[in-house]
């Protein structure tokens, strides 16, 4: 029963930046520091309307004071390749697609392809498997639950409890059914006289309980559904016994006892719902738990009867009936699924029983659907006539209904609540701590400490410690860069004009790294922009020890400091700044600025520091408006104005070769040993989001 609710464990859609919220079309990219900021932060003023991100259309973003565009770098996880592990584990599906995989090599990566949404991640989200020497993303790693805990009281819940009690906190942690804010247990003061005068209701009902759950955000309280508690603790247990309105309900155990006392027979649904007429047998309203219990005992009786009498029905019908839901075989299988008892199954498997009859009375678990909606309709009309409020607002929204916990005391199927006035407090869903495994070698990539309150990790192999970070900045040299057009919206790139960006690669590892970059000459998609990497091949110095750096720094300042230029300490304007390191000229051509003073030169590094190197990339953005008009391809879609450049990054370095290392046949690591050192390489696609292209021209 509880299994219907998924644990709130880790929703990939929420953590994956590129996945869009289907309801709003908004890019769900909340986390990370380098994220596009306010456009993704949801805000809605109405507490009842709890849809998460405010629907923002691209036009809104554009016309209203626009959210500043933060350049981003997303990296493509190799798991999205059609045949990621083919060399190791060739499976049937991979082989079927192998021809497609081969010509995948010839194609450049298209960041706008629908599939790319699922494979691009910011660096923070990526892990790194040290054994496979490969990037791993949240989508491809295997997760294992380390522990369950309640996000409100932060108590750990043992996994055995999860099986028996379900995936919600069974202490006193509840969320408001209206606004999902936390509910607090409050004492209702009864004795003072003025209170009594002011609110006679309180005094009247105070005998039933003196604690309530109340929401301090929207002022909802459990008195609205007529529920008060005797004790301030173990609210969950008390609430399970209370119906809306405050009537007590029999728990399963109590009902069993009562049935025993009555000696079987009809054990109708406790106090009964106030709307139901309990007189007529077939109309008796059973709550979900009672109905299930009745059905269960009925079918158990049936099974044992059938098994006892052997083959009752005709041969042909018996054989046919084994296919339907009423067949004893399928029935016992279903029951063992839901009740977890396998004893029935064993008994039955020996003899092929015949037909059985279905439940005929509420005592046997028969529940007639009540399709009569008149009461709901009159209630809806009453809201409008009595309170003058909009009746629609008194009905529960889909999200409110969705967040309701399954309540065993509810009447099933057709008795679901439709009004906000009958929503029940929501016990907090449990959260989990999870460890991650490499999908291929099964080594653990990330493992948090199992204690709920600690934030340390035992293992944490993150990609940021292995591959260079890329930061993007627009290059504006006064005098050289043409001044921005006056009619250009701020924070946009002018179309059809060369714009230059500085890409800074920061090396996290202790070896110097050789980087080779490649991009297609024009960006894929409807609006091809021309791209030139001015220096596609360069080196980044090693990430030396911080102490070493500090010592160098001291030396530099102590001595004349001019000699130490190459020691490269201060990154910005400091003595370590080094322009135009001489490297092999790359294949980039056609840059108009080549050879000019001060401007970026082809084949030369722009700047370099201790463990970082900057290069320049030149872009001539396509004109959105012209292209769209000329091709007649319709309007510009959402985010099509963002200038995204796919870039292939290949990094090579020499690492200390571990002796017992057996290299997997991956491209990421090749033997080639010389003197304890070993050449390593890693190659991946990434996407540079440079900015929005202006929609002028």
């Amino acid at each position: 029963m509880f299994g219907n609710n998924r644990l709130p464990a880790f929703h990939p859609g929420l953590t994956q930046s590129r996945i869009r919220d289907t309801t709003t079309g908004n890019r769900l990219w909340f986390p990370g520091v380098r994220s596009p900021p306010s456009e993704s932060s949801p805000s809605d003023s109405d507490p009842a309307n709890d849809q998460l991100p405010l629907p923002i259309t691209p036009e809104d973003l554009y016309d209203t004071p626009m959210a500043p565009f933060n350049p981003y770098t997303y990296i493509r996880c190799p798991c999205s390749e059609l045949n990621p592990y083919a060399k190791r584990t060739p499976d049937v599906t991979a082989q079927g697609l192998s021809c497609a995989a081969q010509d995948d090599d010839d194609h450049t990566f298209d960041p706008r392809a629908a599939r790319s949404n699922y494979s691009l991640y910011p660096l923070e989200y990526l892990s790194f498997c040290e054994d496979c020497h490969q990037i791993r993303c949240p989508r491809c790693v295997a997760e294992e639950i380390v522990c369950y805990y309640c996000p409100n009281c932060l108590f750990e819940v043992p996994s055995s409890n999860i099986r028996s009690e379900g995936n919600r906190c069974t202490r006193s942690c509840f969320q408001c059914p209206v606004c999902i804010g936390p509910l607090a247990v409050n004492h209702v003061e009864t004795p003072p006289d003025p209170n009594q005068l002011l609110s006679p209701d309180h005094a009247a009902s105070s005998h039933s309980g003196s604690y309530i759950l109340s929401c301090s955000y929207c002022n909802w309280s459990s008195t609205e559904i007529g529920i008060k508690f005797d004790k301030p603790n173990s609210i969950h247990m008390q609430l399970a016994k209370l119906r809306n309105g405050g009537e007590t309900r029999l728990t399963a155990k109590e009902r069993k006892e009562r049935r025993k006392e009555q000696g079987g027979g009809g054990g109708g649904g406790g106090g009964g719902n106030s709307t139901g007429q309990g007189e007529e047998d077939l109309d008796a309203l059973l709550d979900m738990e009672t109905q299930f219990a009745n059905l269960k005992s009925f079918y158990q009786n049936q099974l044992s009867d059938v098994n006892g009498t052997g083959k009752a029905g005709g041969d042909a019908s018996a054989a046919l009936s084994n296919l339907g839901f009423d067949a004893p075989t399928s029935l016992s299988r279903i029951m063992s699924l839901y009740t977890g008892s396998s004893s029935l199954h064993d008994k039955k498997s020996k003899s092929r029983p015949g037909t059985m009859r279905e439940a005929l009375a509420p005592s046997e678990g028969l529940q007639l659907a009540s399709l009569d909606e008149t009461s709901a309709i009159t209630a809806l009309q009453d809201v409008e006539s009595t309170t003058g409020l909009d009746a629609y607002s008194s009905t529960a929204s889909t999200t409110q209904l969705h967040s309701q916990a399954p309540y065993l005391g509810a009447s099933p199927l057709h008795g679901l609540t439709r009004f906000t006035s009958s929503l029940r407090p929501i016990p907090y869903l449990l959260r989990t701590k999870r460890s991650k495994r490499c999908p291929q070698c099964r080594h653990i990539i990330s493992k948090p400490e199992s204690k709920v309150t600690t934030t340390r990790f035992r293992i944490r192999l993150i990609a940021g410690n292995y591959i260079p970070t890329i930061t993007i900045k627009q290059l504006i040299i006064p005098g050289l860069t043409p001044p921005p057009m006056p009619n250009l919206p701020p924070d946009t790139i002018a179309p059809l004009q060369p714009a230059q960006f500085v890409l800074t690669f920061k090396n996290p590892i202790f070896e110097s790294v050789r980087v080779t970059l490649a991009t297609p000459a024009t960006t894929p998609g409807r609006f091809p922009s021309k791209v030139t990497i001015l220096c596609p091949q360069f080196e980044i110095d090693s990430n030396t020890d911080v102490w070493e750096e500090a010592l160098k720094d001291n030396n530099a300042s102590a001595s004349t400091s001019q000699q130490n230029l190459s020691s490269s300490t201060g990154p910005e304007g400091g003595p370590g700044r080094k322009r135009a390191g001489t490297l092999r000229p790359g294949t980039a051509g056609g840059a108009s600025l080549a050879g000019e003073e001060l401007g970026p030169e082809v084949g030369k590094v722009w700047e370099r520091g201790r463990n970082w190197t900057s290069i320049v990339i030149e872009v001539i953005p396509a004109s959105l408006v012209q292209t769209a008009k000329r091709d007649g391809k319709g309007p510009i879609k959402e985010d099509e104005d963002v200038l995204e450049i796919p870039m292939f990054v290949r990094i090579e370095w020499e690492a200390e070769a571990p002796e017992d290392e057996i290299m997997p046949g991956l491209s990421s690591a090749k033997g080639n040993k010389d003197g304890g050192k070993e050449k390593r390489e890693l190659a991946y696609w990434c996407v540079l989001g440079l900015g929005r292209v202006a929609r002028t021209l």
Partner: protein
Amino acid sequence: MSRRPPRGEYIETDTGNKVARKATLVGTQNIMLGGKTVIQPDVMIRGDLARTIPPAQSASGGPANNTAVAIGRYCFLSKGCVLRPPGRMYKGVFTFMPLRLGDHVFVGPGTVVQAAQIGNHVHIGAKVVIGEFAIIKDYVKVLDGSVVPPNMVIPSFSIVAGQPARIIGEIPEGGIEAFELRDLYKTVGNNPQPTTS
């Protein structure tokens, strides 16, 4: 301090705190700064809202500790934010309770914080309201414009947004370095260092 001939925008203390001259600190005797904390102009810290009832006579037998606002190291209080200790009825009397901030807490501009406790490495965005007695654990990011309801507990590694705030995501393993505020600390003050790339 005033030894320096040109009066800087900030007062820099021995423990490395940088407090803007234009910040409003009320009841300074009840405000504890852990060191290396930046307080920008127009920040208001209500140290005057100290407990009116002495804390429960437990093991702390020493001098009455009447701290209203305790701030850890490397915190960054942006322009125009307000730190205000929460208050409630306690045994029939209204009293304020202390507000505690851990280390590396960033509080965005225009934000009002009335939490009971904020852990280490917490990023609170701009124009956020943190309700009374909220508890925010470590490595939490509160996005701009959120309204965290009173009494809410936000567990570690959460990303929180909305009105009322709810948990909308998790901080990835690789994202926890971004909470470090050491570099940010260096970029403000009377002789700020440029940001490192």
